[in-house]
Protein backbone atom coordinates (compact mmCIF):
# COMPACT_ATOMS: atom_id res chain seq x y z
CA UNK A 1 0.00 0.00 0.00
CA UNK A 2 1.32 3.43 -0.86
CA UNK A 3 1.95 6.10 1.72
CA UNK A 4 -0.86 8.12 0.22
CA UNK A 5 -3.51 5.45 0.63
CA UNK A 6 -2.19 4.74 4.10
CA UNK A 7 -2.69 8.36 5.05
CA UNK A 8 -6.21 8.36 3.61
CA UNK A 9 -7.02 5.26 5.59
CA UNK A 10 -5.72 6.83 8.79
CA UNK A 11 -7.73 9.98 8.14
CA UNK A 12 -10.88 7.89 7.84
CA UNK A 13 -10.02 6.06 11.07
CA UNK A 14 -9.39 9.42 12.72
CA UNK A 15 -12.72 10.74 11.55
CA UNK A 16 -14.47 7.64 12.86
CA UNK A 17 -12.94 8.05 16.31
CA UNK A 18 -13.40 11.80 16.10
CA UNK A 19 -17.10 11.37 15.34
CA UNK A 20 -17.56 9.50 18.61
CA UNK A 21 -15.63 12.14 20.54
CA UNK A 22 -17.65 14.84 18.81
CA UNK A 23 -21.01 13.31 19.78
CA UNK A 24 -19.94 13.11 23.41
CA UNK A 25 -18.27 16.53 23.40
CA UNK A 26 -21.42 18.19 22.06
CA UNK A 27 -23.30 16.88 25.11
CA UNK A 28 -20.68 18.35 27.46
CA UNK A 29 -20.79 21.65 25.66
CA UNK A 30 -24.58 21.97 25.54
CA UNK A 31 -24.94 21.31 29.25
CA UNK A 32 -22.09 23.66 30.07
CA UNK A 33 -23.68 26.32 27.87
CA UNK A 34 -26.98 26.19 29.66
CA UNK A 35 -26.11 25.70 33.35
CA UNK A 36 -22.33 26.29 33.38
CA UNK A 37 -21.73 22.78 34.67
CA UNK A 38 -19.02 20.36 33.57
CA UNK A 39 -21.27 17.35 33.74
CA UNK A 40 -18.80 14.63 34.68
CA UNK A 41 -21.63 12.12 34.82
CA UNK A 42 -21.97 12.51 31.05
CA UNK A 43 -19.25 9.93 30.37
CA UNK A 44 -21.01 7.36 32.55
CA UNK A 45 -24.27 7.92 30.70
CA UNK A 46 -22.37 6.56 27.69
CA UNK A 47 -21.33 3.54 29.74
CA UNK A 48 -24.95 2.87 30.70
CA UNK A 49 -25.99 3.31 27.07
CA UNK A 50 -23.37 0.78 26.02
CA UNK A 51 -24.59 -1.74 28.63
CA UNK A 52 -28.15 -1.32 27.39
CA UNK A 53 -26.97 -1.98 23.84
CA UNK A 54 -25.01 -5.01 25.06
CA UNK A 55 -28.03 -6.38 26.95
CA UNK A 56 -30.32 -6.16 23.93
CA UNK A 57 -27.72 -7.49 21.50
CA UNK A 58 -26.85 -10.39 23.79
CA UNK A 59 -30.51 -11.37 24.15
CA UNK A 60 -32.12 -10.28 20.89
CA UNK A 61 -29.20 -10.29 18.46
CA UNK A 62 -31.43 -10.31 15.42
CA UNK A 63 -32.97 -6.94 16.26
CA UNK A 64 -30.08 -4.46 16.34
CA UNK A 65 -32.35 -1.47 15.75
CA UNK A 66 -34.21 -2.24 18.97
CA UNK A 67 -30.87 -2.21 20.79
CA UNK A 68 -29.95 1.14 19.26
CA UNK A 69 -33.34 2.67 20.11
CA UNK A 70 -33.26 1.30 23.66
CA UNK A 71 -29.79 2.67 24.20
CA UNK A 72 -30.72 6.16 22.98
CA UNK A 73 -33.97 6.16 24.96
CA UNK A 74 -32.25 4.84 28.09
CA UNK A 75 -29.56 7.51 27.95
CA UNK A 76 -32.13 10.25 27.40
CA UNK A 77 -34.20 9.18 30.40
CA UNK A 78 -31.11 8.76 32.56
CA UNK A 79 -29.78 12.22 31.64
CA UNK A 80 -33.08 13.94 32.36
CA UNK A 81 -33.51 12.03 35.62
CA UNK A 82 -30.02 12.93 36.84
CA UNK A 83 -30.74 16.59 36.12
CA UNK A 84 -34.08 16.53 37.93
CA UNK A 85 -32.90 14.58 40.96
CA UNK A 86 -29.34 15.76 41.47
CA UNK A 87 -28.81 19.13 39.76
CA UNK A 88 -32.14 20.92 39.88
CA UNK A 89 -32.25 21.19 43.70
CA UNK A 90 -28.87 22.96 43.49
CA UNK A 91 -29.95 25.57 40.94
CA UNK A 92 -29.16 28.46 43.27
CA UNK A 93 -26.20 26.88 45.05
CA UNK A 94 -22.56 27.76 44.34
CA UNK A 95 -21.26 26.19 41.15
CA UNK A 96 -18.70 24.11 43.03
CA UNK A 97 -21.52 22.18 44.78
CA UNK A 98 -22.94 21.30 41.39
CA UNK A 99 -19.54 20.15 40.12
CA UNK A 100 -18.95 17.94 43.16
CA UNK A 101 -22.42 16.46 42.76
CA UNK A 102 -21.64 15.64 39.13
CA UNK A 103 -18.49 13.80 40.19
CA UNK A 104 -20.53 11.97 42.83
CA UNK A 105 -23.12 10.87 40.27
CA UNK A 106 -20.31 9.67 38.04
CA UNK A 107 -18.94 7.41 40.80
CA UNK A 108 -22.43 6.26 41.71
CA UNK A 109 -23.11 5.09 38.16
CA UNK A 110 -19.73 3.39 37.75
CA UNK A 111 -19.94 1.55 41.05
CA UNK A 112 -23.56 0.53 40.58
CA UNK A 113 -22.64 -0.94 37.22
CA UNK A 114 -19.72 -2.78 38.79
CA UNK A 115 -21.90 -4.12 41.58
CA UNK A 116 -24.66 -5.32 39.28
CA UNK A 117 -22.69 -6.53 36.28
CA UNK A 118 -19.16 -7.16 37.54
CA UNK A 119 -15.94 -5.41 36.74
CA UNK A 120 -14.95 -7.64 33.84
CA UNK A 121 -15.49 -6.39 30.31
CA UNK A 122 -18.23 -8.00 28.26
CA UNK A 123 -18.20 -8.51 24.53
CA UNK A 124 -20.85 -6.72 22.49
CA UNK A 125 -22.05 -8.66 19.42
CA UNK A 126 -21.77 -6.71 16.14
CA UNK A 127 -24.75 -4.56 15.21
CA UNK A 128 -24.22 -5.30 11.54
CA UNK A 129 -21.77 -7.30 9.46
CA UNK A 130 -18.76 -5.09 9.00
CA UNK A 131 -17.28 -5.33 5.53
CA UNK A 132 -14.38 -3.61 3.90
CA UNK A 133 -14.84 -1.66 0.73
CA UNK A 134 -12.07 -0.91 -1.72
CA UNK A 135 -12.03 2.52 -3.24
CA UNK A 136 -9.04 2.66 -5.54
CA UNK A 137 -6.11 1.59 -3.41
CA UNK A 138 -7.81 2.47 -0.12
CA UNK A 139 -9.77 -0.05 1.92
CA UNK A 140 -12.27 1.27 4.42
CA UNK A 141 -14.57 -0.57 6.78
CA UNK A 142 -18.29 0.04 6.59
CA UNK A 143 -18.23 0.69 10.36
CA UNK A 144 -16.14 3.82 9.74
CA UNK A 145 -18.44 5.05 7.01
CA UNK A 146 -21.60 4.38 9.05
CA UNK A 147 -20.11 6.19 12.06
CA UNK A 148 -19.14 9.26 10.06
CA UNK A 149 -22.52 9.32 8.29
CA UNK A 150 -24.44 9.02 11.57
CA UNK A 151 -22.43 11.90 13.02
CA UNK A 152 -23.10 14.05 9.97
CA UNK A 153 -26.85 13.39 10.12
CA UNK A 154 -26.97 13.99 13.88
CA UNK A 155 -25.15 17.29 13.56
CA UNK A 156 -27.37 18.54 10.74
CA UNK A 157 -30.47 17.69 12.79
CA UNK A 158 -28.98 19.26 15.91
CA UNK A 159 -28.11 22.46 14.06
CA UNK A 160 -31.63 22.70 12.66
CA UNK A 161 -33.05 22.11 16.12
CA UNK A 162 -30.91 24.77 17.77
CA UNK A 163 -31.12 27.39 15.02
CA UNK A 164 -34.61 26.99 13.61
CA UNK A 165 -37.01 25.83 16.33
CA UNK A 166 -38.65 27.65 19.19
CA UNK A 167 -37.09 25.33 21.76
CA UNK A 168 -33.67 25.79 20.18
CA UNK A 169 -34.06 29.54 20.35
CA UNK A 170 -35.06 29.23 23.99
CA UNK A 171 -31.95 27.12 24.64
CA UNK A 172 -29.73 29.81 23.17
CA UNK A 173 -31.56 32.54 25.07
CA UNK A 174 -31.39 30.70 28.41
CA UNK A 175 -27.69 29.98 27.97
CA UNK A 176 -27.04 33.66 27.35
CA UNK A 177 -29.24 35.15 30.09
CA UNK A 178 -31.53 32.82 32.01
CA UNK A 179 -33.25 35.52 34.03
CA UNK A 180 -34.25 37.58 31.01
CA UNK A 181 -35.38 34.44 29.17
CA UNK A 182 -37.70 33.81 32.12
CA UNK A 183 -39.06 37.32 31.87
CA UNK A 184 -39.94 36.55 28.23
CA UNK A 185 -42.04 33.61 29.39
CA UNK A 186 -39.54 30.79 28.81
CA UNK A 187 -39.99 27.82 31.10
CA UNK A 188 -36.41 27.58 32.28
CA UNK A 189 -36.67 24.16 33.93
CA UNK A 190 -38.28 22.73 30.82
CA UNK A 191 -35.56 24.18 28.64
CA UNK A 192 -32.81 22.76 30.84
CA UNK A 193 -34.46 19.31 30.86
CA UNK A 194 -34.74 19.46 27.09
CA UNK A 195 -31.04 20.30 26.79
CA UNK A 196 -30.10 17.34 28.96
CA UNK A 197 -32.41 15.12 26.92
CA UNK A 198 -30.77 16.12 23.62
CA UNK A 199 -27.21 15.90 25.00
CA UNK A 200 -27.90 12.48 26.51
CA UNK A 201 -29.58 11.17 23.36
CA UNK A 202 -26.41 12.10 21.46
CA UNK A 203 -24.41 10.25 24.13
CA UNK A 204 -26.66 7.23 23.46
CA UNK A 205 -25.82 7.40 19.75
CA UNK A 206 -22.17 7.81 20.70
CA UNK A 207 -22.26 4.73 22.92
CA UNK A 208 -23.59 2.55 20.07
CA UNK A 209 -20.96 3.88 17.66
CA UNK A 210 -18.29 3.29 20.30
CA UNK A 211 -19.44 -0.33 20.59
CA UNK A 212 -19.14 -0.66 16.81
CA UNK A 213 -15.51 0.49 16.99
CA UNK A 214 -14.50 -1.27 20.23
CA UNK A 215 -17.03 -4.05 20.84
CA UNK A 216 -16.77 -4.42 24.58
CA UNK A 217 -18.34 -2.80 27.63
CA UNK A 218 -17.02 -2.31 31.15
CA UNK A 219 -18.10 -0.12 34.08
CA UNK A 220 -15.18 2.30 33.63
CA UNK A 221 -15.25 2.47 29.83
CA UNK A 222 -16.77 5.94 29.95
CA UNK A 223 -14.07 7.64 31.93
CA UNK A 224 -11.27 7.79 29.34
CA UNK A 225 -13.71 8.41 26.49
CA UNK A 226 -15.40 11.10 28.57
CA UNK A 227 -12.12 12.79 29.49
CA UNK A 228 -11.01 12.91 25.86
CA UNK A 229 -14.38 14.23 24.75
CA UNK A 230 -14.04 16.85 27.47
CA UNK A 231 -10.64 17.83 26.04
CA UNK A 232 -12.32 18.03 22.62
CA UNK A 233 -15.03 20.32 24.01
CA UNK A 234 -12.45 22.61 25.64
CA UNK A 235 -10.29 22.60 22.51
CA UNK A 236 -13.26 23.63 20.34
CA UNK A 237 -14.49 26.17 22.87
CA UNK A 238 -16.77 24.90 25.61
CA UNK A 239 -20.36 26.02 25.12
CA UNK A 240 -20.00 26.01 21.32
CA UNK A 241 -21.65 23.16 19.40
CA UNK A 242 -19.64 23.53 16.16
CA UNK A 243 -16.56 23.92 18.35
CA UNK A 244 -17.24 20.57 19.99
CA UNK A 245 -17.43 18.94 16.57
CA UNK A 246 -14.17 20.46 15.40
CA UNK A 247 -12.50 19.57 18.69
CA UNK A 248 -13.76 15.98 18.43
CA UNK A 249 -12.32 15.53 14.96
CA UNK A 250 -9.01 17.09 15.94
CA UNK A 251 -8.60 14.82 18.95
CA UNK A 252 -9.64 11.76 16.92
CA UNK A 253 -7.18 12.53 14.13
CA UNK A 254 -4.40 13.30 16.61
CA UNK A 255 -4.83 9.99 18.38
CA UNK A 256 -4.87 7.98 15.19
CA UNK A 257 -1.81 9.69 13.73
CA UNK A 258 0.18 9.47 16.95
CA UNK A 259 -0.53 5.73 16.93
CA UNK A 260 0.23 5.44 13.21
CA UNK A 261 3.74 6.80 13.62
CA UNK A 262 4.41 4.12 16.19
CA UNK A 263 3.85 6.05 19.41
CA UNK A 264 0.56 4.43 20.38
CA UNK A 265 1.58 4.21 24.03
CA UNK A 266 1.84 8.00 23.99
CA UNK A 267 -1.54 8.74 22.46
CA UNK A 268 -3.37 9.55 25.72
CA UNK A 269 -0.50 11.72 26.89
CA UNK A 270 -0.57 13.69 23.65
CA UNK A 271 -4.31 14.36 24.05
CA UNK A 272 -3.82 15.73 27.53
CA UNK A 273 -0.79 17.70 26.39
CA UNK A 274 -3.17 19.40 23.93
CA UNK A 275 -5.45 20.26 26.86
CA UNK A 276 -2.57 21.83 28.75
CA UNK A 277 -1.43 23.81 25.73
CA UNK A 278 -4.91 25.07 24.91
CA UNK A 279 -5.47 26.13 28.53
CA UNK A 280 -2.20 28.04 28.48
CA UNK A 281 -2.51 29.61 25.04
CA UNK A 282 -6.22 30.08 24.35
CA UNK A 283 -8.38 28.98 27.28
CA UNK A 284 -11.58 29.95 25.46
CA UNK A 285 -10.83 27.36 22.75
CA UNK A 286 -10.99 27.62 18.98
CA UNK A 287 -14.56 28.91 18.61
CA UNK A 288 -15.21 29.98 22.18
CA UNK A 289 -15.86 33.59 22.97
CA UNK A 290 -14.13 35.33 25.80
CA UNK A 291 -17.10 36.66 27.72
CA UNK A 292 -16.65 39.03 30.56
CA UNK A 293 -18.37 37.87 33.69
CA UNK A 294 -21.66 39.73 34.22
CA UNK A 295 -22.17 41.61 37.47
Amino acid at each position, binding site marked *: MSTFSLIIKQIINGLQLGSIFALVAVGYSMVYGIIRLLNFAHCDIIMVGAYIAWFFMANFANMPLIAVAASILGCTLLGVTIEKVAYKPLRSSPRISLLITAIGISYLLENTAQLMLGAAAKKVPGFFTVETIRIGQVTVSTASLVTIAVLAISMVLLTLLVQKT*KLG*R*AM*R*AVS*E*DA*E*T*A*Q*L*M*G*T*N*INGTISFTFAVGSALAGIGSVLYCCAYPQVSPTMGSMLGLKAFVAAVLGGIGSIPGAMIGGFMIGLTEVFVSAIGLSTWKDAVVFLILIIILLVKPSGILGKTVSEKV
Partner: protein
Amino acid sequence: MLKVENINVYYDNIHVIKNLSFDVNDGEIVTLIGANGAGKSTTLKTISGILRPKTGNIVFENEEIQSLAPHKIVSKGLVQVPEGRRMFQNLTVEENLEMGAYTLPKGEIPDMIEDIFARFPRLKERRKQVAGTLSGGEQQMLAMGRGLMSRPKLLMLDEPSMGLAPLLVDQVFDIISEMHAAGVTILLVEQNASMALQVADRGYVLETGKIALYGSGKELSESEQVKKAYLGG
Protein backbone atom coordinates in the same frame (compact mmCIF):
# COMPACT_ATOMS: atom_id res chain seq x y z
CA MET B 1 -55.50 45.49 38.08
CA LEU B 2 -52.30 44.86 40.07
CA LYS B 3 -52.33 44.96 43.84
CA VAL B 4 -49.17 44.53 45.88
CA GLU B 5 -50.14 43.87 49.50
CA ASN B 6 -47.66 44.10 52.38
CA ILE B 7 -44.81 42.27 50.71
CA ASN B 8 -41.52 41.63 52.49
CA VAL B 9 -38.53 40.60 50.41
CA TYR B 10 -35.12 39.47 51.66
CA TYR B 11 -31.74 38.91 50.03
CA ASP B 12 -30.42 36.23 52.37
CA ASN B 13 -30.70 38.07 55.69
CA ILE B 14 -31.02 41.57 54.35
CA HIS B 15 -34.53 42.93 54.57
CA VAL B 16 -34.86 44.82 51.28
CA ILE B 17 -38.58 45.44 50.84
CA LYS B 18 -40.50 46.25 53.99
CA ASN B 19 -44.28 45.89 54.08
CA LEU B 20 -44.66 47.41 50.66
CA SER B 21 -48.16 47.99 49.30
CA PHE B 22 -49.29 49.77 46.17
CA ASP B 23 -51.65 49.27 43.28
CA VAL B 24 -51.97 49.92 39.59
CA ASN B 25 -55.42 50.42 38.06
CA ASP B 26 -56.43 49.38 34.58
CA GLY B 27 -55.35 52.01 32.01
CA GLU B 28 -53.01 53.96 34.29
CA ILE B 29 -49.37 54.88 34.10
CA VAL B 30 -47.99 54.48 37.60
CA THR B 31 -44.41 55.28 38.46
CA LEU B 32 -42.14 54.10 41.25
CA ILE B 33 -39.37 56.60 41.81
CA GLY B 34 -36.54 56.55 44.29
CA ALA B 35 -32.78 56.60 44.67
CA ASN B 36 -30.38 53.83 43.82
CA GLY B 37 -30.87 50.91 46.19
CA ALA B 38 -34.36 51.95 47.32
CA GLY B 39 -35.69 48.59 46.13
CA LYS B 40 -37.35 49.54 42.85
CA SER B 41 -35.86 46.76 40.72
CA THR B 42 -36.30 44.28 43.56
CA THR B 43 -39.99 45.13 43.62
CA LEU B 44 -40.35 44.48 39.89
CA LYS B 45 -38.39 41.23 40.11
CA THR B 46 -40.66 40.10 42.89
CA ILE B 47 -43.78 40.90 40.87
CA SER B 48 -42.30 38.94 37.92
CA GLY B 49 -41.63 35.92 40.14
CA ILE B 50 -37.83 36.00 39.86
CA LEU B 51 -37.70 36.75 43.59
CA ARG B 52 -40.22 35.52 46.14
CA PRO B 53 -41.76 37.62 48.88
CA LYS B 54 -41.37 36.07 52.32
CA THR B 55 -44.78 37.38 53.30
CA GLY B 56 -47.51 39.33 51.56
CA ASN B 57 -49.58 38.90 48.42
CA ILE B 58 -49.37 40.04 44.84
CA VAL B 59 -52.73 40.03 43.09
CA PHE B 60 -53.07 40.43 39.33
CA GLU B 61 -56.59 40.58 37.90
CA ASN B 62 -58.05 39.11 41.10
CA GLU B 63 -55.65 36.20 41.20
CA GLU B 64 -52.77 35.67 43.62
CA ILE B 65 -49.55 35.29 41.63
CA GLN B 66 -46.81 35.47 44.26
CA SER B 67 -46.07 31.75 44.07
CA LEU B 68 -46.40 31.28 40.30
CA ALA B 69 -43.38 30.50 38.11
CA PRO B 70 -42.11 33.50 36.10
CA HIS B 71 -43.25 32.09 32.76
CA LYS B 72 -46.79 31.58 34.12
CA ILE B 73 -46.88 35.23 35.20
CA VAL B 74 -45.79 36.36 31.73
CA SER B 75 -48.51 34.29 30.11
CA LYS B 76 -51.09 36.15 32.19
CA GLY B 77 -50.07 39.37 30.48
CA LEU B 78 -47.86 40.84 33.21
CA VAL B 79 -44.57 41.50 31.47
CA GLN B 80 -41.33 43.20 32.45
CA VAL B 81 -38.74 44.98 30.32
CA PRO B 82 -35.70 44.54 32.56
CA GLU B 83 -33.17 47.15 33.53
CA GLY B 84 -30.15 47.56 31.29
CA ARG B 85 -32.07 46.31 28.23
CA ARG B 86 -30.68 42.78 28.53
CA MET B 87 -30.68 41.88 24.85
CA PHE B 88 -29.79 38.35 23.84
CA GLN B 89 -26.59 39.62 22.24
CA ASN B 90 -25.99 36.56 20.06
CA LEU B 91 -29.55 36.33 18.77
CA THR B 92 -30.70 38.43 15.81
CA VAL B 93 -33.11 41.33 16.20
CA GLU B 94 -35.87 39.15 14.81
CA GLU B 95 -35.03 36.25 17.13
CA ASN B 96 -35.06 38.60 20.12
CA LEU B 97 -38.57 39.69 19.15
CA GLU B 98 -39.62 36.07 18.70
CA MET B 99 -38.35 35.37 22.22
CA GLY B 100 -40.61 38.16 23.42
CA ALA B 101 -43.57 36.37 21.89
CA TYR B 102 -42.67 33.08 23.56
CA THR B 103 -46.10 32.66 25.11
CA LEU B 104 -48.07 33.51 21.94
CA PRO B 105 -49.34 30.99 19.38
CA LYS B 106 -46.85 30.66 16.52
CA GLY B 107 -49.28 31.88 13.84
CA GLU B 108 -49.58 35.34 15.37
CA ILE B 109 -45.88 36.07 15.57
CA PRO B 110 -45.17 37.33 12.01
CA ASP B 111 -47.96 39.95 12.24
CA MET B 112 -46.76 41.08 15.65
CA ILE B 113 -43.21 41.46 14.33
CA GLU B 114 -44.47 43.59 11.44
CA ASP B 115 -46.35 45.76 13.97
CA ILE B 116 -43.19 46.29 15.96
CA PHE B 117 -41.21 47.08 12.80
CA ALA B 118 -43.85 49.62 11.82
CA ARG B 119 -43.34 51.30 15.17
CA PHE B 120 -39.54 51.01 15.12
CA PRO B 121 -38.39 51.20 11.48
CA ARG B 122 -34.73 51.13 12.52
CA LEU B 123 -35.20 47.63 13.84
CA LYS B 124 -36.58 46.47 10.50
CA GLU B 125 -33.41 47.59 8.74
CA ARG B 126 -31.43 45.51 11.18
CA ARG B 127 -33.68 42.48 11.50
CA LYS B 128 -31.00 39.92 10.59
CA GLN B 129 -28.24 41.56 12.64
CA VAL B 130 -27.31 40.13 16.03
CA ALA B 131 -28.51 42.37 18.85
CA GLY B 132 -25.00 42.85 20.23
CA THR B 133 -24.17 45.08 17.26
CA LEU B 134 -26.97 47.59 17.93
CA SER B 135 -26.40 50.97 19.53
CA GLY B 136 -27.70 51.66 23.04
CA GLY B 137 -30.75 53.53 21.74
CA GLU B 138 -31.58 50.81 19.24
CA GLN B 139 -31.23 48.21 21.98
CA GLN B 140 -33.71 50.10 24.14
CA MET B 141 -36.17 50.20 21.20
CA LEU B 142 -35.66 46.46 20.77
CA ALA B 143 -36.14 45.88 24.51
CA MET B 144 -39.45 47.74 24.44
CA GLY B 145 -40.50 46.07 21.21
CA ARG B 146 -39.66 42.70 22.73
CA GLY B 147 -41.77 43.57 25.77
CA LEU B 148 -44.72 44.46 23.53
CA MET B 149 -44.44 41.21 21.54
CA SER B 150 -46.26 39.26 24.23
CA ARG B 151 -49.28 41.62 24.01
CA PRO B 152 -49.00 42.60 27.67
CA LYS B 153 -51.93 43.91 29.66
CA LEU B 154 -49.53 45.48 32.11
CA LEU B 155 -46.00 46.35 31.04
CA MET B 156 -43.40 47.01 33.73
CA LEU B 157 -40.46 49.10 32.53
CA ASP B 158 -37.33 49.13 34.66
CA GLU B 159 -35.27 52.29 34.07
CA PRO B 160 -35.94 52.57 30.32
CA SER B 161 -34.07 55.88 30.07
CA MET B 162 -30.93 54.72 31.84
CA GLY B 163 -27.71 55.47 29.99
CA LEU B 164 -29.39 57.09 26.99
CA ALA B 165 -28.65 60.47 25.40
CA PRO B 166 -31.24 63.18 26.21
CA LEU B 167 -32.75 63.05 22.72
CA LEU B 168 -33.28 59.31 23.05
CA VAL B 169 -34.74 59.74 26.53
CA ASP B 170 -37.44 61.97 25.02
CA GLN B 171 -38.06 59.35 22.36
CA VAL B 172 -38.40 56.60 24.96
CA PHE B 173 -40.98 58.63 26.87
CA ASP B 174 -42.88 59.35 23.63
CA ILE B 175 -43.06 55.62 23.03
CA ILE B 176 -44.31 55.02 26.58
CA SER B 177 -47.11 57.54 25.98
CA GLU B 178 -47.94 55.89 22.64
CA MET B 179 -48.08 52.43 24.19
CA HIS B 180 -50.33 53.78 26.90
CA ALA B 181 -52.59 55.38 24.31
CA ALA B 182 -52.80 52.00 22.60
CA GLY B 183 -54.31 50.55 25.78
CA VAL B 184 -51.36 49.11 27.71
CA THR B 185 -51.28 49.75 31.45
CA ILE B 186 -47.80 50.77 32.56
CA LEU B 187 -45.77 50.50 35.74
CA LEU B 188 -42.69 52.63 35.26
CA VAL B 189 -39.62 52.48 37.47
CA GLU B 190 -37.34 55.46 36.97
CA GLN B 191 -34.48 57.41 38.46
CA ASN B 192 -35.34 60.21 36.06
CA ALA B 193 -38.11 61.39 38.36
CA SER B 194 -39.07 64.57 36.53
CA MET B 195 -39.73 62.78 33.23
CA ALA B 196 -41.52 59.90 34.96
CA LEU B 197 -43.81 62.20 36.96
CA GLN B 198 -44.71 64.15 33.82
CA VAL B 199 -46.22 61.11 32.10
CA ALA B 200 -47.54 59.29 35.18
CA ASP B 201 -51.11 59.39 36.46
CA ARG B 202 -49.89 58.45 39.91
CA GLY B 203 -46.58 57.90 41.59
CA TYR B 204 -45.00 56.32 44.64
CA VAL B 205 -41.71 57.40 46.16
CA LEU B 206 -39.71 54.47 47.46
CA GLU B 207 -37.11 54.94 50.20
CA THR B 208 -35.16 52.00 51.66
CA GLY B 209 -37.85 49.50 50.79
CA LYS B 210 -40.83 51.52 52.01
CA ILE B 211 -43.29 53.94 50.44
CA ALA B 212 -42.24 57.38 51.66
CA LEU B 213 -44.79 59.38 49.70
CA TYR B 214 -47.50 58.91 47.14
CA GLY B 215 -49.90 60.99 45.09
CA SER B 216 -50.80 62.00 41.58
CA GLY B 217 -47.95 62.74 39.21
CA LYS B 218 -48.70 66.43 39.45
CA GLU B 219 -48.87 66.47 43.24
CA LEU B 220 -45.56 64.68 43.57
CA SER B 221 -43.75 66.90 41.10
CA GLU B 222 -44.90 69.91 43.09
CA SER B 223 -44.08 68.44 46.48
CA GLU B 224 -41.19 70.19 48.24
CA GLN B 225 -39.87 66.92 49.57
CA VAL B 226 -39.70 65.34 46.11
CA LYS B 227 -38.27 68.47 44.52
CA LYS B 228 -35.49 68.55 47.05
CA ALA B 229 -34.58 64.89 46.96
CA TYR B 230 -35.24 63.87 43.36
CA LEU B 231 -35.76 66.84 41.08
CA GLY B 232 -32.60 68.72 41.93
CA GLY B 233 -34.56 71.66 43.30
